[in-house]
Structures are given as C-alpha cells and as structure tokens.
C-alpha cells in the first residue's frame, strides 16, 4: 500500500510534466489542425537553455534558490518562445495553404534539424547537473517502507496547476483567447471579422513553447540529466497524452498527461521498466480504436 502511494506521487509528478508539454500539442492542433512534430524538440531546447542558465547562475553566485529558479524560469520561457515563434514562422507559415501533409513533413524536418543543431552546438554527451532542490516531507513511515514527497514534487505539481489555471483563464476570458477560439472554428470568417489570423497562430505557438519551457525547467530540476534526444520521447508521450485526453481540449491534455504519467510509473513499478514505452503506445492505439476523439474530445464533424 505504501509502495502504491509512493508510485502515485511519482506518477502525478511525471504526469504534470507531460501535461504541460501536451498543452502545446493540443493548442496547435486545435487551431491549425496539424501535429507540431517539433514541439518535443522545442521542449528539449528549453531544457538546454535552463540547464545552461542554472550553470551560469551558479558561476555568478546567485545562490538563493527560489530567486534562481524564478529567474531561470523567466529567461527560459522567453528564449524558448523565440524558438517556438521562429519555427512557426520559417517552417509552417509558408505552408498554411498547402496540402495537408506538407506542414507535418516540414515539422519532421524541423525536429531532425533542431536535434542535430543542439548536438552540434552543445555536444552529444549526456549533460548532468547537481540537484538544486533537495529534501522532502515524510508522509507515512511504516517498518518496511517510507513514503516521501519531495519539495520538488510539490513545486512541480503546484507550478503545473498554477499555469494551467492561468492558461485556462487566457483562453476563456481574454481577447487573445477569443481570437484563438474564433480561428479554431473558421479562419476565413475570423479574418473577415478583423482578427489577425497569422498573429493569433504565432501567439499560440509562443504560448505552447512557453509551457514547454516551464516543463523543461521542471524536468531539469527533477531528473538532473538531459541530452539532445530527450525531446523525441517526451514529445511522443506528450502527444499520446493529448490524443488520450481528446486533442484540442485543454483539460483533456492535462488529464491525458496525468494518465500517461501514472500508467508509465505503475507499469515500471509493477511490471517491467523496459517495456514502459510499449505500454504508453499500446494505450494510444487502444484509445484511438475505441474512442478516436479521446476522453474529453468533441466528436468531429466531417464537412464536404
């Protein structure tokens, strides 16, 4: 039982990170109907930026941890958003009116490009960093097992839910959110009503990248090890989460992320750690067969 609770805590932490990345997929899919394949790599770039920023802050001598984390968070969000914006501008915007597979293929090219770009610039080796936030609270102490929740896990879950609420507010109650929802329904009509469609789509990418940046900072803090390849797996998992929750739906992405995190953690804990990726993909296939619109997705109406 204690073991179960511990895994539950670990699963929710992992799921929060997946959920944050998944929002980027789901927003972009909702608005322009394409899978932003390079989103996982934008996350990876965010992880590199945050790792370097932590190293630099350590060298400068900023040691008050809350301030350091906040500073890294802000810088990473800004710089990663620039990447998100540039990717959209260079690889997707020219293809807006092209045939359906074109942006997807361009996104795959972008993903390969970004991976190798980072590999060339920062080296292929695994990058470790010393743990920054340590310590935790012991929840249950039995003779055989100790259930702990680390401060870091609390930070991750809190940060995720805080950001989720902020973004839910932006989408539901600001003019930007309204234009996003308008573009989602009908881009032509939205542009006729005076919405700058290109700008709205760009901002969607920026928002997705900013959330991925937050996820990447949390990832660096939690795991402490990154390489140029982490974006691929994190991206696939997060996309699976977005589909599981119902692509296009913001709460769905969060729910899907939590579920994928829990499935992966419990599978590793109780079955075999080698096959945890297989478990996540099998879930994806099963969901697509039995409920193609995902758990919280709206059924799609096919128009001729």
């Amino acid at each position, binding site marked *: 039982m204690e073991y179960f609770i511990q895994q539950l805590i670990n699963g929710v932490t992992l799921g929060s990170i997946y959920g944050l990345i998944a929002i980027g997929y789901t927003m972009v899919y909702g608005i322009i109907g394409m899978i932003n394949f390079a989103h996982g790599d934008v996350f990876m770039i965010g992880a590199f930026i945050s790792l370097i920023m932590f190293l630099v802050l350590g060298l400068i001598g900023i040691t008050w941890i809350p301030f350091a984390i906040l500073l890294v968070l802000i810088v990473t969000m800004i710089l990663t958003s620039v990447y998100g914006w540039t990717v959209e501008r260079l690889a997707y915007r020219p293809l807006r009116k092209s045939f359906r597979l074109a942006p997807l293929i361009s996104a*795959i090219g972008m993903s390969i490009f970004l991976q190798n770009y980072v590999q060339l610039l920062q080296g292929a080796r695994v990058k470790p960093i010393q743990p920054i936030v340590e310590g935790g609270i012991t929840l249950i102490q039995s003779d055989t097992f100790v259930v702990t929740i680390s401060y870091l896990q609390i930070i991750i879950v809190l940060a995720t839910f805080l950001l989720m609420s902020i973004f839910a507010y932006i989408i539901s109650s600001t003019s930007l959110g309204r234009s996003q929802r308008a573009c989602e329904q009908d881009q032509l009509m939205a542009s006729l009503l005076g919405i700058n469609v290109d700008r709205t789509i760009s901002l969607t990418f920026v928002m997705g990248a900013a959330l991925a940046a937050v996820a990447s900072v949390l990832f660096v803090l939690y795991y402490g090890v990154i390489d140029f390849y982490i974006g691929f797996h994190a991206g696939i998992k997060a996309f699976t989460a977005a589909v599981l929750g119902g692509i296009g739906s913001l709460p769905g992405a969060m729910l899907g992320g939590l579920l994928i995190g829990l499935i992966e953690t419990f599978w590793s804990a109780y079955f075999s750690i080698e096959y945890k990726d297989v478990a996540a993909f099998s879930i994806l296939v099963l969901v697509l067969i039995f409920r*193609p619109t995902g758990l919280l997705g709206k059924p799609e109406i096919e128009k001729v």
Partner: protein
Amino acid sequence: MAKATRPPLNWLALFKESGVAALIALGLSIVMFGLRTVDQQGGLGVQTRWSWVVFAVVSVFIGRLVLAIYRETRQPPHTPSGTQDSEQNRFAEFVRKISKVVAPLLIIFAIALPFLPFSSRYIIDVATLVLTYIMLGWGLNIVVGLAGLLDLGYVAFYAVGAYSYALLAYYFDFSFWICLPLAGIFAATFGIILGFPVLRLRGDYLAIVTLGFGEIIRVVLINWYTFTGGPDGLSSIPRPSFFGLPFSRRVPEDSETFHTFFGLDYSSMHRIIFLYFLILALALITNFFTLRMRKLPLGRAWEALREDETACRSLGINPTNTKLSAFAIGAGFAGFAGSFFATRQGFISPESFTFIESAVILAIVVLGGMGSQLGVVIASILLIGGTELFRGLEEFRMITFGGLMVAVMVWKPRGLLAHRDPTLRLHAPSHTPESHKSNT
C-alpha cells in the same frame, strides 16, 4: 509597372524590419551559441563564445536587409490565379516526356555499371546502398505517394523483414531464396495487423501510431534478448547463394561453387556484383509492380482516396480496405528490402532500425516528389550518394537532411518532381481556407 513610378525605398522601415530579425537572432543564439557546456572536473562547466553570437546576429541583419531590398526593388509578381497550376502541369508533362527517355537510360547504365572501366568495389558498394534506398523509397511511395498515408514507422517493416530472414536462417536453416518471400509476407502481415485498427482513423493519427509502432518494434528487439539477441544483434547471417551455388573460395567436397561452376577464377567481387544485381532486380520489380498497380482499379482507388476520401466513399470505394492494401503492399516491399539488407550485411542489430532511418526514407519520397518514381531515384542518389561523397562532414549530415526537408517543403511542397495523375479539377485548389484541414 515602370521602374520610375516606384516610390523610393523606405530605409527606416527596412532597417526596422532587419533590426527585429536581428533581435530574434540574438534571442535564438545568445544561450545556444554563446554558452557551451563542457565536461570538466566535478561536473559541467560553461565556455563562452560570444563571437558566434555576434556573427549570427550580424549575418541575420545583413541577410534580412538584402532580402528586403530585393523584395522592394523587383517587379511585384502578378500572376493570375491558375497560372501556377497550369505551369505545374506543363512541368509534369515535361517530366513525363523526359522520364520516358531517362528511365531506360538509367536502367541500362545501372546494368552496365559493374562492367564499366571506372567501377570499383567502393562504387558498387555505394550503388548497392543507393539502390536499397531506392527500393525502400519506391515501397514507401506506394503508401505515402499513391495512397497518401503518412507512415512514420516504415523502418519497422524493414526490421521485420531483416529479422525474419536472420531468425529463420538461424533457427530453421532456411536459405535466402526461401526466406525472401517469407520475409515479405511476414512484413505485410505486420502491416495488416497494425493497419487494420488504425487505418480507419484520420491521417495525422496514423502518422503517430506508425511512429509508435516503429518504436515498439525496436524496444521489443532490444529487450527480447533470448530470441533476437537484444542490443548485440544477430551475426553470421548466411550469405545468399547463386541459385544454390555458394560464393566461397573453398570448394566443399562433392559440390560446386560459383567460380568452379562457371570456370572462373575466384574473386571476392563476384558476390558484391551478385548482390548489386539482386537489389537492382528487386528494386525494378518494385517499380514495375507500382507502375502496373497504378493502372489497375485498386491503384486508381489509392490515388482517388488520397485526393478526397469523402468523395470516394460516396462512390462506393471501401476506404479501409483500400488503404489496408496499400499499407500491406508497401510493408511487404520493405520486408524484401530488409531481408536483402540482412544478407548483405551479415549482421543486424536494432541500431540499424531507428526513427532516423524512417525519416531518411520519407525524406527521399518527399524530396523526390510524392508519387514520382523518377523523383525517388534522383533523391536517393542525391541524399545517399551525396552523403557518401561528403563522408568527412558526417556530423553535418542529419542537420542538412532536416534543413532540406523543411526547405523543399516551403519551396516546392509537392517535391522536386511533382507528379499527380488526376490533374483535372473542378475548381482551382488553395482558395478554400479549409483545405489544410480537410479530412482526406
């Protein structure tokens, strides 16, 4: 429009535009270029290289300025709608005419290659590699180019083919010629098993599921140590024989080898040349099959389905079965290529079947022009042969690949040699804002 009537350049606006671009370049490069993580005693250290950042920012500023001046000073493009389309059709017509001449010439050249004076073992090895990719490209072309299904896990079927030959030869001692069709059948079966549940879905989901499937196959190959050898792979896979005559120097008792049977001196080149012709034949079979399929009702249904699924359904075409056939046939050809790969290398491991390999094959199909058989050949020669030429620049290989994929998509979304048979349209495309979302 005469040149004199154009208003003078608005330098302020141009500089502002370039300045914004330079600012973005600064944001992109300040951490990734400016600070490099290096391994040092006791963890990671950071090195600075600000000169790179300055260089990036300045070059982006100048590049953007030049581009903007060019854009402002040239004649505004005034093309009536539809011109581009008919131009594309004229180009396609031209390509079709050319390919009638070029294709036989290429085939003759390919057959003659081993006997040409300049050919060497190295050239034939590279040519064999290029042909392997041409065959994989043609196989994937059936799935992506004709049926319009984006398959990101094509390498999984290649792996199934390679492993089924290696395992059948290992456990049952089957010869290459028995395993070749079996490998194709196995791969096609995998295609059907995977395709049946997911082909009913929209195209983008298919891409992700096939990607996931490719990863699953790789994970299983790595972890099922007792059966597949895990990450160590399988070695000493039997080499193919010339219809029962082995290519070996030592002549076994009471049997013959290739060189004794034909009364030749032994040469290690025989096997290399034989493998070359084998893949050439396999590739040409794939090509011939595809060309014939396009004329059959099933092949026509594939292309129709690519264009408009809803219309197809209203005309009584079963989309799932049609897609499934394309998927399985494409997978089957990957299986053939896989078993060729296994017998040529003599060693296989999961390392050879990563996502990058799928992406390379997809890049060949996409860059060549989806649906174009000649395009696949040209793209394979450029990409695979080209990277062989620039072996010294190995580390820049994949980044060029990725960049090329984006650039070609932006510049010519239909690929270098776009080929679309149903060129008759009721209304010109790309005027409907929904076109990128339509559920084809």
